[in-house]
């Protein structure tokens, strides 16, 4: 087994190569504006670090968000195109789960993962740590941090949510962004369990679009000119 994993759903552009037993290499760039430019070179670099070739890859694991749409889509379209061109399966991993996977080692009970959804909102889900392993308790959601109930707000919280909204999420824990090593480990787990989660993006929001009303009258608007 040789897994190429990457994620572009948070501020990180992250890629990793994993052989099913150990992580061979990981690369990580923090840059919210350069997902389109930087993902492919990051993947090329991590493959070189791992002394692996794309044709040796057996599975692709990709973060499917939730996350800001444009960045998220770059990861997913890269993954499905690799999958098609290399004839290998592509597994979709919830990006919040990947953050929770890393956070679970440091907590012993319930915790949140909250990432930046922009527009004063967060993408979030509730987890519990059982023997250092994260179990998701609620589906990934989008909403205002102030709208979370008091019990959720009081939980330790991984992701960038607590940095952005410390008044509502006062107990930050690490990590802040997705690490592709975690996406790879979760991909290994799914492959071993014989599961094949689809690489369909978790948008959670509808596209912004307004249906037009009647054409604006120009006679009135232009009357004074």
């Amino acid at each position: 087994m040789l897994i190429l994993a990457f994620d572009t759903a948070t501020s990180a552009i992250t890629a990793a190569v994993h052989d099913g037993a150990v992580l061979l290499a990981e690369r990580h760039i923090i840059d919210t504006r350069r997902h389109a430019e930087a993902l492919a070179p990051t993947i090329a670099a991590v493959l070189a670090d791992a002394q692996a070739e794309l044709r040796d890859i057996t599975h692709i694991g990709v973060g499917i968000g939730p996350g800001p749409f444009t960045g998220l889509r770059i990861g997913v379209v890269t993954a499905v195109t690799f999958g098609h061109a290399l004839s290998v399966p592509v597994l979709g991993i919830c990006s919040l789960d990947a953050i929770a996977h890393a956070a679970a080692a440091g907590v012993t009970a319930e915790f949140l993962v909250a990432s930046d959804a922009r527009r004063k909102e967060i993408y979030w889900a509730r987890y519990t740590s059982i023997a250092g392993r994260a179990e998701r308790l609620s589906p990934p959601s989008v909403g205002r941090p102030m709208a979370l109930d008091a019990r959720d707000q009081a939980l330790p919280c991984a992701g960038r949510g607590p940095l952005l909204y410390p008044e509502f999420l006062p107990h930050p824990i690490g990590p802040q962004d997705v690490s592709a090593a975690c996406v790879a480990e979760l991909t290994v787990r799914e492959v071993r369990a014989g599961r094949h989660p689809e690489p369909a993006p978790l948008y959670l929001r509808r596209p912004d679009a307004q249906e037009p009303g009647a054409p604006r009258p120009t006679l009135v608007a232009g009357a004074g000119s």
Partner: protein
Amino acid sequence: MKRDQPLVLGIETSCDETGVGLVAGETLLADAIASSVDLHARFGGVVPEVASRAHLEAMVPTLERACATAGVTLRDVDAIAVTSGPGLAGTLMVGVAAAKALAMALGKPLYGVNHLAAHVAVDIVEHGPLPEPVVALLVSGGHSSLLLVPDVTHDVRPLGATLDDAAGEAFDKVARVLGLPFPGGPHIDRVARDGQVSIDFPRGLSSGRDLQRHRFDFSFSGLKTAVARWVESQRAAGVAVPTADVAASFQEAVVDVLTRKAILACREAGVTDLQIGGGVAANSRLRAMAQERADAAGIAVRVPRPGLCTDNGAMVAALGAQLVIKGRAPSGLDLPADSSMPVTEVTA
């Protein structure tokens, strides 16, 4: 198929069409398109996020369809070309990311190309090598440009462009005023056939000082407003709006300006060949008037078939093949999507 010719796969996602084309040298092998236009119709224009989601879903099926049509596998492809700009930032990124993944997976060079240059290059697969130089009139919902093209692989010079609305945008807006569906171009063309050119709508930047200062530029926003006002004044007076006559008169005004300036550009540049591309090139009146005026001026007109005038993958593949044949340098894996890529940059 001539296998001594480079086989290039082209990807186009600058607006609402997911296009994948395969071109071997100057021969078109496949032109697969998935359009999200129906998803945008009720919004009266392209919604970038809706288009971007549709591109992601359509990418792999469209790649498969192009290869099946051409009877080739991805492993046969010699190079990947992709529109890197100009266009909608979010939709461009889907195509650029897919193209990079293909180039990496196949170990083949990647060419990020200019969408406008690709509109010019596509005519090579229809009518053979481009005359050098050629004047190109590119008119669509996204662009209205006059270009002087000495060499489509590296020398494209802007002569003029629209100062406000693109020509196709004016068609969409006037269609809305007339209660016709989106996209407006084909509907206005159809309705106008039963109408008379009976209303004298304004021709922007076409006379006096405007023409001197903006010799090859266009402006359609004044025309659009004039049509809207004329229609409203009829309605306000309780008179039935003669839709066919309004459509015909509006279309005549647009086409008159486009063809007049295109012919003028050819004459002043001493160029004897005019190429027309973009979605508005499918307009029957534009084709007819361009032919008539070009004939009178001794200029040859080249217009690809309508399916190659609208956005498609074949145009990107056609330009990519020329870049390979002429030995131009490929792009790096850090190729950006550049929504405002200048027309003078053929490759990124």
